[in-house]
């Protein structure tokens, strides 16, 4: 359940994209990755589930180097929801969610009631159970995202990686999905752009800038006016919510 990155570097097209990242995500906790576009959030998540191989450094899950694990072993414990997902296939909602069972089924193993239950539970969790027979192509952007999250949940992961899972969701579903993710027993890494949501739902935050971690720790220790100015180039005031006690960012723009 522990995800640990130690001096992880990765480059593509001769450019260093992830530059010496060291992170430690405690079992069952939720880590928020924040940072500007192109800072390497998606790349980092792909390195954690070994969709890409690190150039140097190590990623370990419970102390095991992911590079030493077979692809199937990784998929049985780590689920990834990518920033975007598209298909040409004429699948319906349930068929997409059922893909999450792939790593748990062998090539020839039959589909069992346990698999069907995992799919139904996942559909319920994201509020898409009634849409189970709707074609994927007819879903709205936010519904597609929730279905992809359900697919990842059906994978029954011990580590869940989410790449901007809320970017198409309405406010209610943003709150619901992040609340759900936070309550899951899994260890979660989630890339987010909304600093207020990140502060509300994450146990720790890691701020990426140009592939490096520039700050990490509990939201109240990480989010301050100076950091937001230097990383995002935006003036902001950080206060505390009287309701939930978490940091609250107010952007100082003239409208």
């Amino acid at each position, binding site marked *: 359940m522990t995800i640990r990155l130690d001096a992880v570097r990765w480059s593509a097209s001769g450019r260093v994209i992830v530059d010496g990242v060291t992170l430690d995500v405690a079992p069952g906790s939720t880590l928020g990755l924040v940072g500007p576009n192109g800072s390497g959030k998606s790349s980092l998540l792909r390195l954690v589930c070994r969709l890409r191989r690190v150039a140097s450094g190590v990623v370990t899950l419970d102390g095991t180097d992911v590079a030493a694990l077979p692809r*199937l072993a990784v998929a049985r414990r780590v689920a990834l929801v990518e920033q975007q997902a598209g298909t040409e296939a004429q699948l319906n909602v349930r*068929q997409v969610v059922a893909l999450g069972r792939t790593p748990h089924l062998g090539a020839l193993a039959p589909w069992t009631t346990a*698999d069907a239950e995992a799919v139904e539970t996942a559909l319920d969790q994201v509020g898409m159970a009634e849409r189970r027979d709707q074609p994927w192509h007819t879903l709205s952007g936010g519904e597609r995202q929730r279905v992809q999250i359900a697919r990842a949940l059906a994978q029954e992961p011990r580590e869940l990686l989410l790449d901007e899972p809320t970017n198409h969701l309405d406010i209610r579903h943003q709150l619901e999905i992040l609340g759900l993710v936070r309550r899951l027993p899994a260890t979660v890494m989630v890339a987010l752009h909304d600093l207020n949501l990140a502060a509300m739902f994450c146990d720790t935050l890691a701020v990426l800038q140009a592939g490096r971690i520039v700050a990490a720790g509990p939201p109240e220790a990480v989010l301050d006016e100076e950091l937001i100015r230097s990383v995002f180039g935006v003036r902001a005031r950080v206060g505390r919510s009287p309701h939930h006690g978490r940091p609250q960012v107010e952007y100082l723009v003239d409208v």
Partner: protein
Amino acid sequence: MRDEGRPRLDGWPLRAALAALSVAALVLAIGLAVSTGEMRIPLAAALGAICDRIFGTAFAPSRIQAGIVWDYRLSRALVAACCGATLALCGAILQALLRNPLAEPYVLGISAGASTGAVAVLIVGFGGDVLTLSGGAFLGAVAAVALVALLAAGAGGGTDRVILAGVAGSQLFNAVTSYIVTTSASAEQARGVMFWLLGSLGGVRWPDVYLAAPVALAGFAVAAFHARALDAFAFGSDAAAALGVPVGRVRAVLFGLTAAMAATMVSMVGSIGFVGLVVPHAARFLVGPGHARLLPASLVMGAIFMVLADVVSRILVPQQVLPIGVVTALVGAPAFAAILYRSRRLA
């Protein structure tokens, strides 16, 4: 369970019934194929003749009819069935791996590459005594797959690029074939070579069945083993890898398999287009997108389609046999247009 789009009957009795029904349909199509031709032989007599040879009965009314049925028409129908089944499987596999609804051996130039290989062996004597016709076709098919993969990757690797790369590949291989034919072939050879370009079941005999049938069945077994992996490619190769599919190995195995299957069929009957395109789409329409059903459905429907196309090619113009590729293209080209139109609308 998970393959249903809308509520359907399910469970093994239904599946067994469907399997039996489709095999019966295939047998009927083959029955039709062996009874039609220049000499019309009633269906009962044709089936009787086949029964005689297999079970030693004595149903057939005449020796001549029995001979025509067994020696010519049955082997031809069986090879047609195997070719149709194989090409449809290739189409289903390629469409899933490349995530492109237009992918199939003919469109991607694999058939053209196999033809070039076969023609090179046949006319130039390429490969000396070592390389058989099928071997030459296989090398050509592999070269075509490699070329398409290379071109598509070089062009940015999008799912659309692969079709453009296939078009370029087919043109190149067809040009090489024409070059070989015009520079090296005698007039008689050149006429025979037309057959590679349009496909023909004319010269097919029993030994071809003994090659085509094992290839079709073994190919199906390998493909069916990868059904779940093919499902997982729906959202792309990264998504498949994240679901635990060994993407590199699966791609290598299945591209190799389609090259081998297409090459075997082309070496026997020439390049026949559009079967691999039309049949998987029709099968998807009937059984849904899950490969555990799509692959067997494509197998059977491809077989039936090709057997019937062969029948049509023999009766469409009296006293003349059309190349079977003409018939499949007449059905396939409009279907290609329809699929193109629909995928544009979905995008």
